[in-house]
């Protein structure tokens, strides 16, 4: 059953259009990856769905109800949680406090502080450490944990591998694999195309704010997707810097 439906969504970033008439759906339990070059509108799109970026046009429907005008904190209460680009932990607060704050919306569900310690043993070790003292991998685990504490029905992940060593990225995706197995509906933006293709069920390619291709991950090849990064016309001019 369709969990999220986005119709004709538009948004601007400063003076420039960032998202232009984007429409797509995601069914419950699905993992969708958004791919595209920098500036394609991926982060803006996630932030619009989360409610922290204003909508210029179009509508968003979550679980059958329109949420286009709903403020961000109400969307969290409804079950949408975003892990923002760059983690954005609260630096003066400890891991435990960051996780507690994640439960502000009071949504019931499987995730609790105890369950968090079990599922993320690396967090249990740094429970009382201040977020500003954590390594990149630890911050990422905490940020994902903080979003999970809201017991979301839809999890949005923005560039979780950014700035992490390959080993740390492996760790993050191992945790995400568990979530996937538990059928958590997820939309992720991931710089590493190979990981996106391996992890997601479906891929949507964005170029300059528009959807230029979408399909089942297993059916799409790297080259096909790479073509859409730049658009076919730029392939003809291959070799000339932007």
């Amino acid at each position, binding site marked *: 059953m369709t969990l999220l439906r986005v119709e004709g969504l538009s948004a601007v970033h400063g003076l420039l259009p960032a998202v232009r008439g984007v429409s797509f759906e995601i069914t419950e339990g699905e993992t969708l990856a958004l791919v595209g070059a*920098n500036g394609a509108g991926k982060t803006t799109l996630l932030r619009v769905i989360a409610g922290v970026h204003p909508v210029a046009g179009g509508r968003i429907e979550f679980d059958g109800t329109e949420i286009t005008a709903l403020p961000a904190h109400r969307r969290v209460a409804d079950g949408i949680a975003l892990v923002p680009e760059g983690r954005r932990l609260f630096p003066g607060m400890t891991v435990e406090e960051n996780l507690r704050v994640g439960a502000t919306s009071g949504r019931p569900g499987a995730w609790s502080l105890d369950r968090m310690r079990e599922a993320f043993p690396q967090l249990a070790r740094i429970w009382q450490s201040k977020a500003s003292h954590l*390594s*990149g991998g630890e911050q990422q685990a905490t940020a994902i944990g903080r979003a999970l504490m809201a017991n979301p029905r839809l999890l949005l992940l923005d560039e979780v591998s950014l700035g992490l060593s390959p*080993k740390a990225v492996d760790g993050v995706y191992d945790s995400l694999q568990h979530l996937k197995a538990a059928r958590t509906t997820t939309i992720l933006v991931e710089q590493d195309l190979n990981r996106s293709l391996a992890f997601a069920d479906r891929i949507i390619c964005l170029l300059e704010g528009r959807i230029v291709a979408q399909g089942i991950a297993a059916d799409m090849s790297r080259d096909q997707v790479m073509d859409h990064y730049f658009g076919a016309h730029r392939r003809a001019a291959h070799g000339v810097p*932007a």
Partner: protein
Amino acid sequence: MLNEVDFALNEGEALGIVGPNGAGKTSLLNVMAGAYRPSAGAIGFRDSDVTALSAAQRCRLGIGRTHQIPRPFSRMTVFENLMTAATHGGGCSGREASDRCIDSLRLCAMMKVANRRAETLGLLDRKRLELARALATGPVVLLLDEIGAGLTDGEAAELVETIREIRRRGVAIVWIEHIVHVLLQAIDRLVCMDAGQIIANGDPQAVLADAHVVDAYLGGGAHDLAPR
């Protein structure tokens, strides 16, 4: 943060630095650039000891750097950012300065946005601006901090081309990076750091095969390190 780190960079060499978060990579860069003072030890540039020199003085000597999170002069245009770098860090003026800026703009594919205010740029252009601005100071050594982060494979390929062109001009490079397959295309030597120390130093493929490096940094999974 750093624990008895020793290494040397030769003229025109390109050195990559990898390591887990918190290993001290950026701290090392900051110490070389003059942003941090070391509590012990010395930094030599060509034949002189530059440990006591400020970051600005080192820049004028020829040590240029970029920042992990781009720090442009927001209210100034791209061109003005570069001119500031060329006239102060690079020590040139007038015609020579603007020629150097135009050259930087071409090299980093920023001609189209030269008159845009830095604060209106997207992430990719900000990163290009960091690089262009460092180049405008006329460096002999260029210190790069995770300049490949967040780039798609196509954008990363362009970056590698630009770095190769910079090397052809005789500039030495020190490059901290997590996107290993990109790094490998541009460097001669690789260093891996962990917990404030250098744990491996030498031929890139050998370093990446080193057991300590695999354990601390790469992790056990298969990693596609071939150029894409």
